[in-house]
């Protein structure tokens, strides 16, 4: 319709530096952080009013004030920071080990698909076994300490990182690789300058998914067997019937997970500006 066309033309405005000479749709919404805060604020309000009116038993869901009080106390006595630190260190170690294995293997099998025949049956078997199902055995083998947690995180995060790396390397446009050959680039140069940058968005997506999975797996492992960490804090509060501490643990997990994911997204966008947006596959913003 002509009316629509003219309206959309009016809404065009020059874009950022990389859009030189072009225009894009200027319609913009409020900052995602503000619009995204609508439901949390409503939930908080509902929680607060419900607690005030005594709509539910305070033992089942303590009031926001009680949770804030518990969080303050746990911060002051160092339990919360220690739990966060302990869990974060496990993530760094477990996820780091997972990346150290999954990234090279993904690249290798992406470049040499024939070698995949050696690995795929084993990997397919492992992929279908939930890491937490292995935990009893892992505790027997590695003890209740850090070893078993690290292996649980490794198992939980290996596949998203490995499969996305493999996919990224395999999907590299053969035409681009041929450009490298026509310009007499060596095999190493073709990998460094064409295959790796082309696979980077997919690799970053895998890392991001893996990071999310690592928190889930770790907390599962800490709930079952641990003597520190956020999962342990929640488990311990459960046995002491401290539902306010459980809520503090849950909120801390959500906030830290969201923050680490957001940080990773920013890093991904900086590393792959041409496709950074596609790294964020879940479409949250």
């Amino acid at each position, binding site marked *: 319709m002509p009316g629509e066309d003219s309206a959309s033309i009016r809404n065009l405005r020059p874009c950022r530096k990389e859009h*030189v*000479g*072009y225009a894009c749709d200027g319609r913009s919404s409020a900052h995602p952080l503000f619009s995204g805060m609508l439901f949390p604020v409503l939930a908080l309000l509902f929680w607060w009013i419900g607690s005030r009116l005594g709509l539910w038993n305070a033992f089942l869901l303590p009031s926001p004030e009680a949770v804030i009080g518990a969080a303050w106390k746990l911060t002051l006595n160092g339990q919360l920071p220690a739990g966060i630190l302990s869990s974060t260190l496990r993530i760094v170690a477990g996820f780091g080990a997972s990346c150290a294995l999954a990234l090279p293997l993904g690249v290798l099998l992406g470049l040499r698909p024939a070698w995949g025949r050696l690995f795929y049956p084993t990997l397919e078997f492992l992929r279908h076994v939930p890491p937490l199902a292995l935990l009893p055995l892992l505790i027997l083998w590695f003890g209740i300490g850090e070893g078993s947690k690290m292996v649980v995180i490794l198992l939980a995060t290996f596949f998203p990182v490995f499969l996305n790396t493999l996919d990224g390397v395999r999907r590299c446009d053969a035409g*681009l690789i041929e450009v490298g050959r*026509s*310009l007499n680039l060596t095999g190493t140069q073709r990998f460094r*300058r064409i295959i790796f940058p082309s696979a980077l968005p997919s690799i970053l997506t895998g890392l991001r998914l893996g990071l999310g999975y690592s928190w889930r797996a770790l907390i599962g492992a800490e709930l079952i067997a641990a003597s520190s960490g956020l999962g342990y804090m929640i488990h311990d509060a459960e046995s002491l019937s401290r539902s306010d501490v459980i809520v503090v643990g849950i909120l801390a997990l959500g906030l830290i997970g969201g923050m680490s994911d957001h940080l990773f997204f920013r890093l991904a966008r900086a590393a792959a500006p*041409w496709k950074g947006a596609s790294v964020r596959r879940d479409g949250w913003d």
Partner: protein
Amino acid sequence: MTVGIRLRGVGRTYALPNGSIRAVDGLSLTVDPGAFVTVVGRSGCGKTTLLRLVSGLEEPTEGAVEFLRDGRRVERGDAGVGIVFQEPRLMPWLTVAQNVRFALEGRSDREQIERKTSETLRMLGLERFRDAYPQHLSGGMAQRVALGRTLVFDPEIVLMDEPFGALDYFTRRKLRRDIRALHAQTGKTFVLVTHDVDEALTLGRTVIVLEAGRIADIVPVPFETAVESDDPVFIPLRRRILRAITGEDSFAPDISHYQEAGVNASH
């Protein structure tokens, strides 16, 4: 000094599950230094294979591709052979300027790379877009960037594989003119492959007609100035090319009405 190309009995056979196919069948041919040669033929006639053999992307199963400077053989690497593909094949993670200097990275010092990149961007009218990413370019502009990426390392021989195939009529027309001007300006050896007979005639000074992997005809185009493809002077040439490919003679329209209108078909 510009480099020429010599093909000596070049053949390329592909193995298929149920036999083999001979894409290029014993071609012998010389392209003089500084020539603009177009290779025309229908799909599957072996023209792209021929270009890939010259570029070194494929090896011939028989015969040899040689490069000659002052009549002496030189290696492909020393000759400097650049190829422009049908699709621009730009690196989507690099800007226009970074794509153009892709071949130079690590091979020259920073200052020289910057100077050559700027020169090439200016020559192709891409300065304004140097920081744009390929996804923001039109098809014609992207193809110009691809051309820039090839020209920037100053190859003696420029090979083009249907570089205008995916472009609209107006962009094709504009790029044809640009390419002719570029050839005149640089004096390099240009070989362009196309299935478009008009394109072959308006661009090349020699048209090689390929059919079933063999040279069906070599047609000289004796017009120095750029002419449009609808110019009547092309009619006999077009007819000759059609005859070489299909054996038919019905491709060209009846030109008697041109003659009646006082247009002389012999230039």
